[in-house]
């Protein structure tokens, strides 16, 4: 079904200027109010539409709040064990090198339990694209400390604030993966305001183009909200990203190879 048709809503003579991307299903998401997972989904879907990739895309879902992304993205998909999406994506991409293989992973999934899989996929220069949604907390399990939680951050497993003395320091994964020769495109963007969302969208397009051109591993980290587990309102959550996450996780381009610049 062409989703544009369904959204004209019978208003004659009106041109549809903003509709549901074809790469998004009509399913209502289960995300909490103010959660930016939904925005991230929409950006990925728009990018798949714009590049005409939907019908050749295979998506690997994570374990985390976005586990059901395979019900929202209108493409072939599978659901990996917690943290193993890059390994699964490797198995798919190696056996179908002409397809577009993407993973979508939270920070617990990618930085904690799946640190090894993401690290080696990047080091191998696996031709996959990773969308890394960093909300500095374990959303799905109810707000425990993640390896990305900020020093002093209150979580359900660090009630009086994350102590670096006891739990060490947050990991900046984009910076880490940028060090590896296999990575081609690694950037961090944020979803806390419109300007940053637009930049994120551009980078998502670029990351997918990197894969299409066979230039190596690409990842877009997206700073995201979890108002529910941060214990604040959706609006406050956007401000929290700006005030607390941005200083620790600066948005920017951490790896853009010459070949990628030439795209």
């Amino acid at each position, binding site marked *: 079904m062409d989703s544009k048709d369904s959204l004209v809503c019978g208003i004659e003579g009106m041109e549809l200027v903003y509709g549901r991307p074809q790469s998004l299903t009509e399913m209502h998401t289960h995300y909490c109010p103010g959660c930016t997972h939904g925005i991230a989904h929409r950006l990925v879907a728009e990018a798949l539409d714009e590049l005409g990739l939907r019908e050749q895309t295979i998506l690997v879902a994570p374990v985390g709040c976005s586990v059901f992304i395979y019900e929202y993205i209108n493409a072939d998909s599978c659901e990996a064990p917690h943290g193993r999406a890059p390994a699964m994506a490797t*198995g798919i991409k190696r056996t179908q090198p002409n397809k577009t293989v993407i993973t979508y992973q939270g920070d617990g999934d990618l930085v904690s339990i799946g640190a090894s899989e993401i690290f080696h996929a990047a080091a191998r220069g696996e031709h996959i694209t990773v969308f890394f949604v960093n909300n500095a907390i374990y959303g799905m399990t109810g707000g425990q400390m993640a390896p990305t939680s900020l020093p002093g951050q209150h979580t359900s497993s660090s009630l009086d604030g994350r102590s670096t003395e006891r739990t060490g320091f947050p990991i900046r994964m984009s910076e880490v993966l940028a060090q590896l020769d296999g990575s081609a495109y690694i950037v961090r963007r944020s979803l806390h305001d419109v300007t940053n969302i637009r930049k994120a969208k551009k980078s998502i397009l670029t990351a997918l183009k990197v894969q299409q051109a066979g230039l190596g591993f690409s990842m877009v980290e997206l700073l995201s909200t979890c108002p529910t587990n941060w214990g604040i309102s959706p609006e406050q959550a956007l401000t929290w990203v700006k005030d607390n996450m941005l200083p620790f996780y600066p948005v920017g381009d951490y790896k853009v190879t010459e070949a990628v610049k030439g795209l």
Partner: protein
Amino acid sequence: MTKELLKGNVAIAEAALRAGLEAYFGYPITPQTELLEHLSKRMVELGRVFLQAESEVAAINMVYGAACSGVRTMTSSSSPGFSLMQEGLSYIAGSDLPCVVVDVMRGGPGLGNIMPSQGDYFQVTRSAGHGDFRPIVLAPASVQEAIDFTVLAFDLADKYRHLVVIAADGLIGQMMEPAELPEMRPSSRSAPDYALTGAKGRPPRAITSLHMAAEEEEAFNIKIQQRLGVIRSLEQRWFEYKVDDALLLVIGYGTAGRIAYTAVESARSKGLKVGLLRPQTLYPFPEDRISELADQIEGVLVVEMNAGQMVEDVRLAVGGQAPISFYGRMGGVVPMPDEVLSNIEAAYERISARYLVE
């Protein structure tokens, strides 16, 4: 085709690619490594997928991904590595995907050693991962059987869309024997209807092991159990030797089964009525044949290279109709034929003693 002198691990690797293996992912571990090494060369020569993964955890998830692509895929490992694959195996089972996993078992628990063992019997037949599922498990006792079972493994995996484990012990992996390899199968195989190939001209497909509603999950479990029921009724395989007039039945698989064969031969030459049943499938366990024989026999001796893990299955199949004794060596020690023979003689004597009493 003629026989060639082949090492078990190499034979399994070569048989796998001739059976149509399209993508292999693995991690080095003794006594399995030659399998990976052989494929690193041959798969690349043939333009197929070979990748040395960063861990067994990654390897099994790469297999999971390749199985989503609908290709014939495999990994291999030995005991500690097989332990690491359990999560992935469970997800593969929970997604109804076929694949083949080779476990060339070594001494354990822990790092144990690199000597031949059958210590993973419980793990491969019962707890290959969390949740209610069991893989089909094939146990070769020679290099030739390792080859034949590898081909069979891929066919069974495809036939049932099910996980198949080849449980070989370190001796099968390491020893060299003359054996015959199969012809190379044509590799053109169209993608199965569940494969993720991009939703072009069709609705999207999703492969997932997640069923949020308990009833849905139960329905999925019932489907697995029904399939296992069919597998139990159609796929029990075993080898038997001189069971017709046997009073004592020796049961052993893999290397232990082969040693037991030699011991049974010696016992026969001494005039003892002893027969051998060597399970070739550990799951489904050849329970039908064993319970049939249980009517006729007066005793059972189980021989294994572990603490007696198969005894439970034998006991269930025999159903109390005959006394069961066990002889096993652990930790990578391979029993000698005379040790088994003296255990046969002892078990036989107990049977005769019972007869005398009667």
